[in-house]
């Protein structure tokens, strides 16, 4: 696919009204590791897979899910440096809002501001769109649990469940099949691990790490990492589930 001469600058529309540079930036996200966000009965979970591309890498470092404040988390899918730029902006917006209004920003407001920031980089030829999609999960007393995804185009939507990256097709079909709204976060961990494992089906031989965070009724409604032993259990059970499915076929 080439846009001939209409795809060299983000400030150029093609004849069909497309902006190819934004689509190419989205390509960068689509080719990267899968990230999932899911709202469950009692909370929100963010999860991502990380390929250990070298045996020399330190375990459980090189994070892609960060805190914006105690009750809001952000997961980055796509180019991590670009995502961290967006993260710094989100932290600044959140901090500024709290200074002004003395309450934490709701996810709706925060992701709106982040989306405007991301969108601004799609309008000028001297800059380029971000090559990352960001997921914002939060809890506050007025709005409850919320989950948003912001794409490189600046589009943002609220979701029950969302995903981006290489394995998004696999994850989306799993979302349709299973009603996460009826599961607690603890119960959902297995299915999330299952989705992440299936997402890299072609690269089974490589080593992967799984990063999961949650905000639930049970952990004080704060954005925190899921304890490592729970992640390990979920991965083990998920692998068994996948084996059963495959034997059943």
């Amino acid at each position: 696919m080439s846009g001939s001469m209409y795809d060299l600058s983000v400030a150029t529309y093609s004849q069909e009204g497309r902006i190819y540079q934004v689509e190419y930036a989205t390509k960068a996200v689509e080719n990267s590791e899968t990230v999932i966000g899911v709202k469950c009965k009692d909370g929100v979970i963010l999860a991502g897979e990380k390929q250990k591309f070298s045996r020399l890498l330190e375990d459980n470092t090189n994070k892609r899910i960060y805190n914006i404040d105690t009750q809001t988390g952000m997961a980055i899918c796509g180019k991590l440096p670009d995502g961290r730029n967006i993260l710094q902006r989100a932290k600044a917006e959140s901090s500024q809002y709290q200074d002004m209004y003395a309450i934490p920003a709701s996810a709706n407001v925060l992701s709106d501001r982040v989306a405007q920031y991301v969108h601004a980089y799609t309008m000028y030829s001297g800059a380029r769109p971000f090559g990352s999609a960001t997921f914002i999960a939060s809890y506050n007393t007025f709005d409850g649990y919320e989950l948003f995804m912001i794409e490189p185009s600046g589009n943002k939507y609220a979701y029950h469940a969302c995903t981006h990256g290489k394995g998004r097709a696999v994850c989306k079909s799993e979302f349709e099949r299973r009603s996460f709204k009826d599961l607690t976060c603890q119960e959902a961990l297995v299915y999330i691990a299952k989705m992440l494992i299936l997402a890299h089906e072609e690269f089974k031989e490589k080593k992967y790490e799984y990063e999961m965070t949650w905000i639930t009724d049970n952990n004080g409604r704060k954005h925190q990492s899921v304890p490592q032993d729970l992640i390990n259990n979920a991965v083990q059970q998920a692998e068994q589930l996948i084996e059963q499915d495959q034997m059943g076929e």
Partner: protein
Amino acid sequence: MLKHLYDTDCVTWSPQGKLFQVEYAMEAVKQGSICLGLKSNENVVLCSLKRQPSELAGYQEKQFKIDDHMAIAIAGLTADARVLCKYMRTECLEYKYTYESHHPVGRLVFKVAEKSQHKTQSGAKRPYGVGLLVAGIDPNGVHLFETCPSGNYYEYKCQAIGSRSQAARTYFESWFHLFEKSTLEQLILHGLSAIKKAIMEDEELNEKNVEVGILGKNLKFTHLNAQELRDYITKLEQFSPNSQIQQE
């Protein structure tokens, strides 16, 4: 594919979702001479091979102290490295002044990565053409990070970057399980063995072209002096990782 259309600046995505200018900047790191780092529970060691522009010139230094608890080894454009080095030193000083303690290593690496990322998102700028290995010790433990021109950073148990670094990485993959409990001396010998794998056939390690920096929980960053380097290079003949396994 018409690569030349998409690879002239940092603000053009290719149809495959790549930024070619950033990838080209990473090539600059691969052109630099090798530097590597490895850590144990107590120490971090940085080893580099220094290049000499000509017979009459001195050897280019590749390791710089950032603070008592932190140092970097560089591969790539030295001038760009100097900018990052100055930035890191300033940040450490300011942190010390404000908080009366050492700058946490991971946070400083994050700042460097952020700075590097900004240079990849403007039509008027170019990425830094240098990769850093950041060795540091803080209350969180012993750290070794690698930063890239792309703004990515990774934490490693041991890593080698620069020209012919794959040979050193292969050495590491075979032996890194020994490093955690290694003594400082063993760590230095492992580092020098790895560098030895990466030199050309007609080259030799000597106290002039090798640089070794060491850092420990109770040891501020220091370079080994010429005599110490000579001693270690001599010890290298007798050293084999197998002997370390037999001891344990």
